[in-house]
């Protein structure tokens, strides 16, 4: 075999991870006409990944594309922190199911997982990037799951994952299934519990929401209007266009563009009565401005700190901690949706009722293709998304 053909054979073998299967590799290398044919097809093809996929299929297996974290970012997250690798599809062991990833949920928290252990272990470099997704069971070795079942699982950013059945959360088959990631998923339940169980708003109170056009923020205002009589809801977002949109579409009574207005002053104008509940998705300077405008006994639902995730730790925290917390007797409470298992059923029922009644308009921002997941997360951290962002994998 000439060196040229040998190189192509090795290249193609690598493309389909045949190097993990020596017997198949020998077959390819033994059939030089086949290698030559594939070489030509590859050179002519516009979509190289189709050829790789084809190669995988004729060898009787699929490719599992996965996006790994190359190194733990210390500053701003970039595409260079990820790489796409292709491997073989795992197989399910006893008690496990093999899952085909359908829609990957993108959340600011994905970035926080790279910073160290939180409510879950940190994602380390060299690992598949973690991420929750809606997935379909394609093979089951556990009696609780059947092929075709839809589950929510931490598949990570990959086409296939084999996971223990007890780590999978079976999902109802409702349409569109993307709602299972937005309004009925983490975003909707986070908005619901954060506002109603941590923020504890009373009728007529003033509610402030940061990242108001985001996946959670886009639901907080609508839940507030559905559940809290006479409340006033103020949103903070990062562009005039978003500020307009959240008032037109999401029920916000007023909006502040934090990039063009000093938040403290703007808050004083739109809410001279002060703020009773602050739903904090961002932390940092906006938290500081809110602290200075909170009313006595105000509640701050600490849902996220997106301003703090993407970069090194800030040198200083917000002024007014602990001073204003003491003098105003504020309550700052962090939470995640799984802190409220006893209220989960009611939350889901309420959300479905409000969606059915048209009180909640679900905002989804769907990006196509697994390979675009890193860019989609980077964009989300920069505030590009409107509503719940997710990646359609198949």
């Amino acid at each position, binding site marked *: 075999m000439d060196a040229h053909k040998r190189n192509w054979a090795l290249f193609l073998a690598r493309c389909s991870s045949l190097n993990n299967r020596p017997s198949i590799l020998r077959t390819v290398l033994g059939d030089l006409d086949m290698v030559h044919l594939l070489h030509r097809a590859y050179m002519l093809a516009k979509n190289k990944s189709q050829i790789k996929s084809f190669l995988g299929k004729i060898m009787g297996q699929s490719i599992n594309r996965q996006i790994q974290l190359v190194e733990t970012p210390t500053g701003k997250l970039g595409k260079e922190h990820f790489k796409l690798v292709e491997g073989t599809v795992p197989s399910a062991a006893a008690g496990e199911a093999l899952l085909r990833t359908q829609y990957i949920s993108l959340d600011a928290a994905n970035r926080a997982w790279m910073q160290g252990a939180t409510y879950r272990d940190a994602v380390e470099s060299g690992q598949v990037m973690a991420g929750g997704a809606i997935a379909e069971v394609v093979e089951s070795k556990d009696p609780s799951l059947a092929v075709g079942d839809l589950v929510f699982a931490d598949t990570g950013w990959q086409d296939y994952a084999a996971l223990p059945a007890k780590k999978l959360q079976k999902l109802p088959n409702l349409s569109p299934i993307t709602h299972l990631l937005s309004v009925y998923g983490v975003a909707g339940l986070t908005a619901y519990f954060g506002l109603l169980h941590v923020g504890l708003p009373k009728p007529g109170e003033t509610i402030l929401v940061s990242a108001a056009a985001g996946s959670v923020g886009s639901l907080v205002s609508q839940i507030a209007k559905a559940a809290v009589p006479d409340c006033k809801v103020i949103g903070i977002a990062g562009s005039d266009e978003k500020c307009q949109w959240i008032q037109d579409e999401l029920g916000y009574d007023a909006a502040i563009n934090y990039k063009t207005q000093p938040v403290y002053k703007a808050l004083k104008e739109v809410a001279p009565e002060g703020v009773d509940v602050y739903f904090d998705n961002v932390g940092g300077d906006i938290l500081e401005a809110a602290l200075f405008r909170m009313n006595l006994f105000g509640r701050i639902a600490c849902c996220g700190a997106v301003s703090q995730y993407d970069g090194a730790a800030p040198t*200083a925290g917000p002024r007014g901690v*602990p*001073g204003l917390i003491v003098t105003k*007797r504020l*309550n700052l409470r962090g939470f995640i949706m799984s802190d409220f298992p006893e209220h989960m059923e009611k939350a889901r029922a309420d959300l479905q009722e409000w969606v059915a009644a048209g009180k909640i308009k679900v905002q989804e921002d769907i990006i196509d293709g697994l390979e675009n997941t890193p860019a989609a997360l980077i964009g989300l951290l920069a505030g590009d998304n409107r509503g719940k962002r997710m990646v359609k994998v198949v």
Partner: protein
Amino acid sequence: MSNMKSKEVQLAARPVGEPTLSDFQIAETDVANPGAGEFLVQNLWMSVDPYMRGRMMDRESYVPPFQIGETLQGGAVGVIIESNNENFAKGDYVNSMNGWREFYVTDGQMVNKLDPSMGPIEGNLGILGMPGMTAYAGLFKVGALKDGENVFVSAASGAVGAVVCQLAKAHGCYVVGSAGSDEKCKWLEEIAGVDKAINYKTCGDLDAAVRDAFPKGIDVYFENVGGAHLQAAINYMNPHGRAALCGMIEQYNDTSPRPGPNNLIQIVGKSLKLEGFIVSNHLDIIPEFYTEMAKLISSGKMKWEQTVETGIENAPQAFLNLFSGANFGKMLVKISDDPTK
């Protein structure tokens, strides 16, 4: 009575930064004769407390600011020396917010009769008074303390902190307190019975000291100081940990708010709760507070220290001493001997 004079301490100027003696002035006023339904009280003890610094600033807080040229206010216990009120008799001991003066006339509104059998009368300004109740409310109402948890207390030998430490110990907790001298730390470990005391002035890296003191993490942090203590506590708090934010003595004299901890992001990741409180929002605790304290005091499980300055003229100095940490335990001013004894 008409020729009686009362010496009183007034605010002469609003302190900027650390207060000085020149921010205070002593005035003498005539003591009026009590009218119908009124009575005359001679103060015996008065309290100086860190929160008073906040009232010296012209800003909105949980109590209105002191006015320049007016007599200051604060907790005081006294004895009734003349009464025209059927509910208050001559010789009764009373608690009021009419401190910083020798005598006052009142109709009894906002004045509470005291039970001298509970212990030394000045205890009503400390262990059995506002500081003790603050400790109790913060630990149980705000901190939602469960028996056997891990508790960190800053300013642990102070009027509030010392009660927090001993209440938590009485509930089977692992307790670590921080204080600013070896003498205070020794008292905490040997007398108050905490598991470990940290001298934050000599320990070097406070964060590492807190980490090493809490191999099982912190469930409840009782915050009295602010700054590096809060930062360290947040770093080592367990998931669903609670911080009862009671004060920030380190920062009362700041002329502008200083930056807070830079690790607040952990509030989200660990589902922490940080709650500010003052005792007057939790007065429902009073019956259970007295019950528990009586039990602990009588069984010798509640110890306290106090530092006493004598004479109303020395009240400003007593107040200033709070910020240098010169006091040990509750800082009190003894205004007069008990004229009824």
